[in-house]
C-alpha cells in the first residue's frame, strides 16, 4: 500500500449505482408532465362542457353539446379514453354540472393515469327555449 489510496474503478461503480437513480428522476419529470397535462385538459374540458350544456335548447341537446365540447377539447391530447356527463336541469337560472374523466398513457412510462374533474355553469336567465 502506497501513500495514495487506490481508487481505480470507483468512478465506474458510482456511475453504475447512480445511473438508475438518475433515470428514475427523469421518469419522475415525465410522469409529472403527463399527470399535470391530463389534469389541465380535464379541468378545461369540464368547464367548456358545462358552459356548452347551458347554451343548448333542450336537455338532450345539453348532453350532446357537452359531449361535443369535451371532444373538441380532448382531441389531440393524450386522453386515449374519456367520458363526459352532464347533470342539472336546463332551466333559466339553473346550474348545470359537467363531469369529465380521462385516462391518459404516460408516454414512455408503463401504466396510465386517470384524471377527473367537474365544473358548473349557470344557465342564462334570458334565453331562447325550444318551442312546441
Amino acid at each position, binding site marked *: 500500500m502506497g501513500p*495514495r489510496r487506490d481508487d481505480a474503478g*470507483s468512478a465506474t461503480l458510482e456511475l453504475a449505482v*447512480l445511473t438508475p437513480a*438518475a433515470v428514475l428522476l427523469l421518469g419522475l419529470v415525465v410522469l409529472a408532465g403527463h399527470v399535470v*397535462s391530463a389534469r389541465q385538459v380535464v379541468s378545461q374540458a369540464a368547464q367548456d362542457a358545462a358552459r356548452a350544456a347551458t347554451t343548448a335548447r333542450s336537455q338532450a341537446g345539453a348532453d350532446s353539446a357537452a359531449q361535443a365540447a369535451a371532444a373538441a377539447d380532448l382531441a389531440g391530447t393524450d386522453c386515449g379514453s374519456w367520458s363526459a356527463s352532464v347533470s342539472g336541469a336546463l332551466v333559466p337560472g339553473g346550474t348545470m354540472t359537467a363531469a369529465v374523466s380521462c385516462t391518459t398513457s404516460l408516454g414512455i412510462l408503463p401504466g396510465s393515469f386517470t384524471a377527473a374533474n367537474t*365544473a358548473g355553469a349557470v344557465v342564462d336567465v334570458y334565453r331562447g327555449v325550444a318551442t312546441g
Partner: protein
Amino acid sequence: MIPNQEGSITLWFAVLASGLLAVVGLVWAGGDALAAKARAQSEAFAAARAGAQAVSGAGLAAGTVVLNPMAANQAAKAVLAAAGANGVVDVSGRTVSVTVSASVPGELLSLVGIATLEVRGSASATATPGT
C-alpha cells in the same frame, strides 16, 4: 501526483438530481397553477354573466337596460359561492366585473420556500339590449 477523484460523480449527481427535482417541482406546481388560473377565469366569467342578467325591471319598463346593482352583486356572489371560489364583484353601470383569486399549493416548491402560488382570473360581462 494524481488528484483524488473520489466522490466526483456523486457531486455531479447531486447537482443533476436537484436540477431534475426543480424541474419536477416547476412542472407540477406550474401546471396546477395554470389549471387554477383557467378555472378562476372561467368562474369569473360565469359570475359576471350571472350578475349581468340582474336587469332592473323598472329600467326595462322605462325602455332602457340598466342593472339592479344589488341584485347583480348578489347573483354574481351566489355563483362564486356555489363554485367555492373567492372573488370580488364590482357592478358599474351595465357591466359586472369579477376577479377571482385562488391559491395553489406549491407542492415540491415548498422546499425552496414557495408554499403557495396565487392565481387570479378576471372577467366582465355587460348587459346589452338584444336586436
